């Protein structure tokens, strides 16, 4: 939290943008994994 306090408002919002984009990308990757048909294990 001390680290966040040292940032400017611009830096805090940029960090949120980067974080949100990463989370959205991970969610999309997770969804794709769920949608992928199970591999044939035979």
């Amino acid at each position: 939290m001390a680290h966040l306090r040292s940032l400017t408002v611009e830096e805090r919002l940029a960090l949120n943008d980067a974080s949100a984009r990463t989370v959205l990308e991970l969610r999309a990757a997770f969804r794709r994994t769920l949608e992928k048909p199970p591999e044939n294990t035979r």
Partner: protein
Amino acid sequence: MTQDLSLLLRDLLQAGVELILVGGLAAVAQGAPVTTFDVDIVHRRSADNVDRLLGVVNRLGAYVREPANRRLPPTREGLLGPGHNLLVTSLGPLDCLGAIERGLDFEKLLPRTTELVFGGHLLRVLQLSALLELKEEWTDEESKLRAAILRRTLLSHTNGE
């Protein structure tokens, strides 16, 4: 869509839209360690200001978020009213709130705001103490977690951490 909430907010301020930043991004701006996915604003509902707001959101291809996903454009009447205009823009989701809990609109919230400098503009944000009070009214688990984070952030400000 490339999510860029900083640019979205900057566009609004650049156009001279009078707004109060509320919600998660207001908490982020004040140092709360949370991640948020949309911009929540309470805008001044004067005709001039709504026209400025409408100009920006139209330029960003905004449409109303709704289950049927009919991609309806935001309306002037809607933005002039006290309701919630939940929009999708090319830079990310934008919630234009005419008023929030207990009918708190732009004028009523003003005394509880702090002015920050953002991108060379003055940005009015709802103070952490007010954000916390609003969050404490909600009883769902996520709101309780957010309230705990806001409380801790507020305490760290008080202690000068």
